[in-house]
């Protein structure tokens, strides 16, 4: 084994906007301990920021005791699994808004899902046990097919 770093990490966040700072700090630790390469590390941070803020903002009802649980797997490919008990929502299925071409027309949102779909090398949604389960893969550079 080249490394003694644990192959799995887990973080549970409460239904509270301040939890986003805990997510960022946790990712700092993981990035360092797992010695993640810059490409996948950047994509992981971006997709978790997008996916988790969406659950807190759109999926949860204010004040309810709901939770998001994040699991990271390092092998065989860096993977984040986000499980939440918020509103049923499949971010892989809905149509993306068009890209605006002028400032006036530009809506002040709708960019998160576009980024999620672009930066995750694989994105799958399911609903085991009545929860959302979003699995995102971040392949290391150069190991791609094609």
């Amino acid at each position, binding site marked *: 084994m080249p490394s003694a770093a644990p192959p799995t990490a887990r973080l549970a966040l409460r239904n509270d906007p301040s939890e986003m700072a805990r997510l960022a700090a946790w990712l700092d630790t993981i990035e360092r301990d797992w010695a993640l390469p810059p490409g996948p590390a950047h994509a992981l941070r*971006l997709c978790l920021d*997008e996916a988790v*803020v969406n659950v807190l903002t759109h999926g949860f009802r204010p004040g309810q005791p709901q939770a998001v649980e994040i699991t990271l797997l390092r092998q065989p490919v860096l993977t984040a699994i986000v499980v939440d008990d918020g509103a049923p929502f499949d971010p892989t299925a809905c149509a993306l808004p068009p890209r605006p071409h002028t400032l006036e027309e530009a809506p002040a949102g709708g960019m998160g899902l576009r980024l999620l779909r672009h930066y995750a090398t694989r994105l799958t949604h399911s609903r085991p046990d009545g929860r959302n389960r979003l699995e995102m893969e971040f392949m290391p550079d150069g190991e791609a097919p094609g």
Partner: protein
Amino acid sequence: MQMDVEALDGERARVVLAGRMDVAGTAAVDAALTELSETRQALLIDLARVDFISSIGLRTLLLAAKRLGRRGGRVVLLHPAKDVEKVLWVSGIAELMPIHHDADAALAAVLA
């Protein structure tokens, strides 16, 4: 996140941002950037020391540009790092405001 503001003249300012424009970080500069976009005519936003941006940060930049645009003003972005510039393009933001990598060109654009 950190934010430094330097007046270019009475109506225009250079804003130097540093840190991560993620959900946690953007909250620290959002109100100040909003105020600048309501009180100035043009903002040169230096992104060189921003090492990460996600949609919450894009939203703050976009809202500032929209507010200024309605009053005939503008936002000009200066030398984003590769990862940050890529996010600007993939999200569509890069099509809505100028991005410069040369400080003189950016200054000319904001003073124009």
